[in-house]
């Protein structure tokens, strides 16, 4: 395989960017969560890539940690989505403003 690390960075960057756009632009909670998933994947890609670049196992380990934490997050987040949907009957994130100052 003959891929410069910079290319990998660019790919991860583009993924991250699209995830970010999804978060900022979408109002549906599910879509926001999907954006988060994409961003996390971009991060994982860089981690694994750097692990390969420097020939160290740590990057991969962190990618796994990332995955585990992310799984936990999704579990909780989706449970919350159900809960919120039940409460407000909508998934529009702007409907949830109980924390208004």
């Amino acid at each position, binding site marked *: 395989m003959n891929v410069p690390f910079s290319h990998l960075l660019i790919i991860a*960057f583009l993924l991250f960017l699209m995830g970010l756009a999804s978060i900022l632009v979408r109002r549906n909670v599910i879509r926001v969560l999907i954006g988060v998933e994409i961003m996390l994947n971009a991060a994982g890609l860089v981690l694994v890539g750097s692990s390969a670049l420097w020939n160290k196992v740590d990057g991969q380990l962190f990618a796994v940690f990332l995955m585990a934490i992310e799984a936990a997050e999704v579990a909780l987040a989706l449970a919350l989505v159900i809960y919120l949907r039940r409460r407000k009957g909508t998934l529009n994130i702007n409907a949830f403003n109980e924390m208004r100052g």
Partner: protein
Amino acid sequence: MATVVFYILAILALLGTYLCVTRSNPVHAILYLVNVLFAVALMYYLLGAPLVAAWEVIVYAGAVMVLFVFIIMMLELTPDQEMSRVGWLRWGPTVLLAMVLFCTLVLFVAVDPETSRVIVDTYVAPKAFGYALFAKYPLAVQVISFHLFIAAIGAYYLGRGGGSRKRSREEGDE
């Protein structure tokens, strides 16, 4: 050969992500995302991380995405058409951020010779991976497992309707 496959996968991933973000139907979006995840998993494999790749497929594509689909189906989400009404305040940072990040990236790539180094073929055997995981980061493993445990309890509590009891009480108060 591997290089070509890698680039194809990269393009697939980017394309899939773009479609995932832009499609208005959430089910479609999820399906595109599954594609992306597969592509990324293969990229992991090519980068010498077979174990991570396997888990990517199992955990992400297998578990998380199924969960998403399940939720979307359960809540009967309809396609949303709110993309057009998005103001600059929300697009603005995205675009600007993209530009700044891009500049940073370019600068980084230009300045640091390390980035232009080619990724050589590496391979981390599952055994070595496991040794490293449990010998070097035992505390992190502990913490993360605890984290998962608590998340499970939380999800159980919320899913069982712990919140709804509270809600009914609040309504009763009103």
